[in-house]
């Protein structure tokens, strides 16, 4: 029961309280670039969720079963980034084969996921938080993906409406997106302290 509790709390905390986009500034690039349309944002979010779950789990396994046992911690970053690149490649092949239409609409975003900081960031945070059991690592990775999807979808929704708004000329595009994101982080700060 208590394990389940921990997992649930971990999930909620990574989705709402420690949301990677709003509190850790991870995954800002696609957040600014992609989130113009809500369906694209959702697709991107799903792709990231899949990759992050896969690579979060794999990097945890590699970290604990290989690197720490053999004292190869120094190669941790290299290994992590290679695992992520591999996972992205896998997803790309899978999507291209089975969902060609989805692949078309993703276009260049799929390979870009490799350099999405949210993914490497999560793998590093899992190590930093000292997560030492597999279920928790998996749940956290999945939660991070969901949190990212949520953030990017909220943002896309707002930006669809922003197109109709009268934004000062010099703030159009990225600046107003950043300011909106700032206001969203304020809103998300309300979740802090929810879990004790």
């Amino acid at each position, binding site marked *: 029961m208590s394990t389940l509790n921990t997992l649930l709390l971990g999930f909620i905390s990574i989705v709402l309280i420690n949301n990677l986009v*709003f*509190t*850790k*500034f*991870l*995954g*800002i*690039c696609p957040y*600014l*670039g992609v989130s113009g349309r809500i369906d694209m944002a959702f697709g991107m979010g799903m792709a990231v969720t899949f990759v992050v779950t896969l690579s979060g789990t794999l990097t945890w396994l590699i970290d604990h079963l290989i690197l720490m046992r053999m004292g190869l911690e*120094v*190669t*941790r*970053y*290299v290994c992590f*980034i*290679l695992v992520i*690149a591999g996972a992205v490649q896998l997803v790309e092949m899978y999507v291209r084969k089975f969902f060609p239409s989805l692949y078309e609409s993703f276009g260049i975003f799929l*390979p870009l996921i*490799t*350099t*999405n*900081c949210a*993914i*490497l*960031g999560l793998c*590093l*945070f899992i190590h*930093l938080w000292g997560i030492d059991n597999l279920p928790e690592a998996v749940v956290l990775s999945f939660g991070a993906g969901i949190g990212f999807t949520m953030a990017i979808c909220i943002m896309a929704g707002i930006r669809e409406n922003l197109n109709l708004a009268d934004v*000062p*000329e*010099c*703030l159009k595009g*990225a*600046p*107003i*997106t*950043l*300011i909106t*994101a*700032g*206001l969203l*982080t*304020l809103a998300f*700060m309300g979740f802090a302290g929810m879990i004790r």
Partner: protein
Amino acid sequence: MTKNSDTTAGIYKETLLAGLWRENPVFRLLLGMCPTLAVTAAVKPALTMGLSVIFVLVCSNIVVSLMRNLLKPHLRILMFTLTIATFVTIADLFLKAFQPEMSETLGPYVPLIIVNCIIICRAEACASKNNLLVSIIDAVGMGVGFTLTLCVLAGVRELLSTGMIFEAKVMPDWFVPWAAMSMPVGAFITLGLLLGLVNKLTKGKS
């Protein structure tokens, strides 16, 4: 780089200046946003971050430029990532050994340099096409441009959130610190407004 400058020195100067303003990675190309937002709560970590990025950028540009003729197209990105990851690890170890406090403040954002789009973008766009000298100059220009931007942003945020710059008090006594500026909110909004300001300035010129 395709532009015909009068002399080779002209090309070098052009390359150097491009990174500083015309193609400033943060303001103009919107690259490397994560560290820009995350480490700019104070000037000191921002400067450390900037220097680490310069180091990684220069080293990876050197390596990539040296082996640009040997690269196979489909293994290119893999080679870039491998190179960058190696130098980032070295930078991380160096910080841990000689700047332990800074290393702790920056935390995971040092290894996150690996996925900083600036570096892989410069490797792809510049170093894999140009000779060693141009690549180095480009790396220095871009790196310094990035560092300066980081420091400006951090300066504004540190000044408003604590009334200090470089941990030295500069604001008068009646100033009440805005704690919000050192939170994520401050980061997003300051960068948004700065970008707006830059847009406005460049618009006025052209």
